[in-house]
């Protein structure tokens, strides 16, 4: 077991207790031993002493939507490379989407991922199990056995279940095992051949549009089914102002929560111009009005979580004409910095942003991490809130390069990342670790 660590002179920011104060963090046996105000009291013998002057100590990020290529498409991303990227981005746990080959629809595959991640990944990998076999939206999987194997939630990944009857059955059955259903909402017939937000821009570009109703119609259905079945329901990612209204209204009637991709918070449809396929995402980037509604939803608590939607794709499928290119962008390394844009612009308080990146995902998934409480896993980050940097393809840690933030100027970088009290990442610009 590693030596105890005392991190002093830090700005401690912990959404679980609404803390934002100077203090020290004590770590022992891979767990948080305590947080003290001002100077640390009674540092244990042999402890590593760290002077974190100028840095924030915050819980490590919990990213609720990450795709990799393992098993099946290791050339895109493995659990190991995704773990490296996560550590570099301050993400100490991520929920792995079941869209692998084979899909994570069987306890044996959950088990494989847990073992493989323990052996190769630097951060905690939390497998989501498929809601339906093969992600085909036709038959439900073995929720009980999948939970026993270690799945933290049920999700059909990129797939959106079209049959209301099947989804009702899935929600009812999931309630038996108290597993949250995390569902990407998309009405396929309304999307049709659509590839970007419907509106003037799509029309000028000659691209088929995806209307907001392709999201709000299935979302309204899901929210009613959640109320009917009593399931714990998390709308995986919403992107339109109408969706925020629906979620806000439904919260009184059930255990409802909602997430958003950082892309829909930080970018809008104008970024697509001209035919930049790295901005082809699902859900699509929406209008600036929608983005503003998302920010309001985050501030009001209607939107609970922010995730990266990390989706590694190779050049072959991304550097294509826009309509023919694959959806998705990587995001583990830029999630926090992109979210901090909203803090630096004065739109959202730091505690609110961090709550959506740490505590709320933990609560939804029933984890005891995501907070700096005594006894919680020592998963935390040391953050330089103002560190300036530019996203450069050459610096990308992930195995795939399809970032939507190439060339973007960022303010704020993770200097050190800890998982279970072990340092798994240090920034090149970070000083000597121990004082």
């Amino acid at each position: 077991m590693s030596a105890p660590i005392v991190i002093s002179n830090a700005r401690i920011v912990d959404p679980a207790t609404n803390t934002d104060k100077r203090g020290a963090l004590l770590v022992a046996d891979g767990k948080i031993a305590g947080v003290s105000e001002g100077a640390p009291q009674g540092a244990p013998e042999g402890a590593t002493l760290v002077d974190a002057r100028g840095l924030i100590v915050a819980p490590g990020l919990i990213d609720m939507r990450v795709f990799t290529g393992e098993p099946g498409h290791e050339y895109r991303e493995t659990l190991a490379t995704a773990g490296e990227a996560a550590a570099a981005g301050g993400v100490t746990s991520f929920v792995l989407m079941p869209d692998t080959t084979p899909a994570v629809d069987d306890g044996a595959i959950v088990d494989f991922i847990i073992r493989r991640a323990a052996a190769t990944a630097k951060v905690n990998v939390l497998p989501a199990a498929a809601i339906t076999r093969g992600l085909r939206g036709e038959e439900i999987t073995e929720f009980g056995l999948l939970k026993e194997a270690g799945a933290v939630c049920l999700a059909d990944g990129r797939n959106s279940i079209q049959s209301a009857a099947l989804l009702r059955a899935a929600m009812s059955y999931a309630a038996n095992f108290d597993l949250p259903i995390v569902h990407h909402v998309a009405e396929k017939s309304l999307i049709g051949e659509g590839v970007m937000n419907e509106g003037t821009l799509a029309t000028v570009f000659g691209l088929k549009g995806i209307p907001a109703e392709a999201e709000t119609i299935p979302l309204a259905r899901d929210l009613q089914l959640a109320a009917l079945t009593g399931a714990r329901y998390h709308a995986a990612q919403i992107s339109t102002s109408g969706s925020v209204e629906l979620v806000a209204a439904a919260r009184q009637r059930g255990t409802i929560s909602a997430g958003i991709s950082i892309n829909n918070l930080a970018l809008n449809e104008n970024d697509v111009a001209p035919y930049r396929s790295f901005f082809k995402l699902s859900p699509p980037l929406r209008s600036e009005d929608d983005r503003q509604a998302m920010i309001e939803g985050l501030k009001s608590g209607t939107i609970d979580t922010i995730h990266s939607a990390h989706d590694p794709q190779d050049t072959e499928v991304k550097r294509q004409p826009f309509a023919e290119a694959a959806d998705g962008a990587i995001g583990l390394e830029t999630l926090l910095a992109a979210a901090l844009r909203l803090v630096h612009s004065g739109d959202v308080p730091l505690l609110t942003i961090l709550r959506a990146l740490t505590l709320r995902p933990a609560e939804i998934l029933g984890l005891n991490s995501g907070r700096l409480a005594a006894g919680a896993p020592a998963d935390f980050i040391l953050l330089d809130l103002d560190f300036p940097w530019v996203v450069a393809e050459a610096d990308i840690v992930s195995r795939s390069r399809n970032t939507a933030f190439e060339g973007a100027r960022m303010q704020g970088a993770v200097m050190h990342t800890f998982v279970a009290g072990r340092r798994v990442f240090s920034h090149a610009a970070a000083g000597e670790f121990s004082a």
Partner: protein
Amino acid sequence: MSSPTETGTRRPFPHRNLLGISQLNQYEILDLIDRAEAMIPISRQPRKTLPTLSGKTQINLFFEPSTRTQSSFEIAGKRLGAQVTNMSVKTSSVTKGETLIDTAATLNAMQPDVIIVRHGAAGAVELLSQKVGCAVINAGDGAHEHPTQALLDALTIRQHKGSLAGLTVAICGDIANSRVARSNLLLLGAMQARTRVIAPKTLLPRGIEAMATEVFTDMREGLKGADVVMMLRLQHERAAGKLIPSIREYYRFYGLDAEKLALAKPDAIVMHPGPMNRGVEIDPAIADGPRSVINQQVEMGVAVRMAVLDALLADREVTA
């Protein structure tokens, strides 16, 4: 407004590629139309060749089948003395694994001077142009742009009406899926014409108001007082039963017949980019009637493509 018509004193065309009307300002549009007008007599004389592009290699790369546009570009290139190669890429060979960028790299290695591309996806021609060292002309990319069509339409209109400014041009049909409509709206807008789009709501894309002066769902209203009636081809195999109930209903409300045409100005001309569906979007009697300029559009197509090739290639020699 000064008109750059004097040959010899003309400035070089300032673009490497012709990817869309959206990249051109009104002077550049006018310049291309003037150049095209000067090309018309060449095709009418017994010896129809100029040596302008002799020794140049032109590749026609068509990912979608097209008889008329491809032959028009082929004839235009040959009349200017270029060596023309046609490459029809069936969609199946693309799904065999070669990406558009692979194709671009392969062709680029053959050192062509110009590649003319038609592709089913919007933006595909621009993407290809970023990967090659030669000039690229967009011969149609998805529902995005078809710039030489808009230029030949403009030249045809000018032949009849003298000028584009102030004219009312009604574009009728499948606006949602039409690159011809978009390029024409951009060009006519830049030249101060009044544009109207006419279609049932299922064939009007969201936000089209941003591209047209007026939007109509009633064809009779939309045709009133028009100087030019531009009909579009309806992809009726795809639309019937989904976006329109039937061909006969479409023809009844959106097909151009004598009765509806009578609402336009008495000297209004009728255009169609072809190929036509007679009896679907247009009455055969109108298509082949005295106010139709459809065959003239085809002739102007060759002149426009000669002008564009000349502007992109002949001028380049000077600047290179």
